[in-house]
């Protein structure tokens, strides 16, 4: 594989950048693979990469209905964090933070990881107490957390509305300084390029129509580009999980919902942190191009439409303007939607299934992008070793039956409430 560096950049400049190798090939599917990953999004690509890199399994195919990186990895708000209270979530996410820090070097691809810090704003004494508790839990798990008072928040993000007579005054906030953002497309492309170079077949425009299961064991799958045999199959299809689960006669604790995001016109640098509103559901950061990147609530009803509705957007941006009044002066550049695999406790599932050789990775809710490396790493381990790693042991499928829920937000099973 061609290494990307300042030297290859200069060298290729002499040929007008017309002689770069393709970043990944476009192979026709083989008859048989050791592992087939369904879903060429961030998690699927990362899984294939770690299967090859950590477990030496390279006879792998990624089957993608559309094109790689065309789903949620290309539609998110690029926030990376590990500010969780529960051990299972915190340790998993913090393991991912380490992978994020090394990712650009590891993949020889600039994912523009920017650990700029995230601040969750608090608007009451009670919320400050909750944040103190969460921050302490984070620190016990080795994650950086700082509880900020009102003045400290004002110093860092003075553009937030600090007036006295607002409905939700700022009492303070919880900051994770090591959190940040990354360039989402580069994450998909970087994983794809490395996986491809190690022998993984990335098969795009290939829809899965059904599965070949005998005596409780997976043998292969039927696709729009022919039948493929596989010893093991991993499902990494986020919002389409329920569609494939139906083909497997499985009913999962997952609902598919629509989440919107939007960016404003680009403006000069004003915000160098990720900030979340504490009295509703709104988060914001500024991209390298200067756009304000914003998101918030689900549209709130089951949906497979990758496009949103205006009432929710209006509701979310009302919160944004309450927090940062200057936003009202900005023009909106783009809005878009993605479909979320909302699990019934807000935490994901990375586990084996009752079908031998079939593995499940789903339920990412609002937090799929930041989990990309850790999800790929642990899912690859689960598939390669046929057992879960201790990092994803809490993300079991049967926790809903046994009562070991990971309900970080305490919302219960109404996934559309945020």
């Amino acid at each position, binding site marked *: 594989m061609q290494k990307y560096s300042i030297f290859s950049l200069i060298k290729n400049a002499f040929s007008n950048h017309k002689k770069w190798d393709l970043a990944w090939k476009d192979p026709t599917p083989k008859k048989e693979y050791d592992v087939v990953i369904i879903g060429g999004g961030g998690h699927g690509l990362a899984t294939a990469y770690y299967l090859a890199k950590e477990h030496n399994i390279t006879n792998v195919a990624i089957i993608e209905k559309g094109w790689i990186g065309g789903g949620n990895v290309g539609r998110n708000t690029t926030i990376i964090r590990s500010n969780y209270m529960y051990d299972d979530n915190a340790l998993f996410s913090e393991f991912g933070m380490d992978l994020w820090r090394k990712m650009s070097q590891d993949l020889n691809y600039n994912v523009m990881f920017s650990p700029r810090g995230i601040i969750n704003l608090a608007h009451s004494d009670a919320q400050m107490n909750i944040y103190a508790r969460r921050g302490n839990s984070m620190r016990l798990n080795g994650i950086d957390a700082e509880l900020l008072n009102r003045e400290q928040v004002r110093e860092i993000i003075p553009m937030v509305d600090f007036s006295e007579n607002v409905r939700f005054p700022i009492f303070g906030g919880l900051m994770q300084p090591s959190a940040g953002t990354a360039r989402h497309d580069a994450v998909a492309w970087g994983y794809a390029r490395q996986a491809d170079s190690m022998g993984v077949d990335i098969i795009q425009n290939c829809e899965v129509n059904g599965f070949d299961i005998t005596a409780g064991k997976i043998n292969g799958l039927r696709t729009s580009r022919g039948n493929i045999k596989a010893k093991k199959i991993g499902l990494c299809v986020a919002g389409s999980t*329920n*569609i494939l689960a*139906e083909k497997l006669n499985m*009913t*999962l*604790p*997952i*609902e*598919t919902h629509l989440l919107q995001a939007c960016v404003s016109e680009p403006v000069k640098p004003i915000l160098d942190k990720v900030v979340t509103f504490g009295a509703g559901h709104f988060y914001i950061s500024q991209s390298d191009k200067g756009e304000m990147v914003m998101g918030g609530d689900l549209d*709130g*009803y*089951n*949906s*497979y*439409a990758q496009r949103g*509705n*205006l*009432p929710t957007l209006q509701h979310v941006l009302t919160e944004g303007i309450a927090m940062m009044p200057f936003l009202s002066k900005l023009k909106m550049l783009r809005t878009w939607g993605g479909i979320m695999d909302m699990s*019934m406790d807000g935490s994901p599932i990375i586990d084996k299934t009752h079908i031998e050789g079939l593995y499940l990775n789903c339920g990412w809710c609002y937090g799929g992008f930041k989990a990309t490396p850790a999800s790929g790493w642990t899912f690859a381990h689960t598939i390669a070793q046929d057992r879960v790693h201790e990092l994803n042991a809490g993300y079991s499928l049967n926790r*809903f*039956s046994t009562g070991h829920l990971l309900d970080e937000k305490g919302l219960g*099973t*109404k996934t*559309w409430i945020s």
Partner: protein
Amino acid sequence: MLYINCPHCGLRSQNEFSYGGDATVKRPDLNKEISDQDWDNFVYNRKSLRGKHWELWQHISGCRQWIKVERDTSTHEIFNTLKANEETI
């Protein structure tokens, strides 16, 4: 914007409604032996498929009644609305 035809009040915008999830989920009959699987299916497991979906909405800023709505989850087209005590077709 969704427009939902409330069987009690007529056509109203989605802003007046609050969502209540899959309307086909049935609470297990308490007079019988109930397996863990039955409870799981009631509390957690959902089909959530692409296509027609019967779901509950509450006309929270109107008559405050719960209603059933048949809606397509990929196009958001609404085909039918029923009162809560009417059986889905």
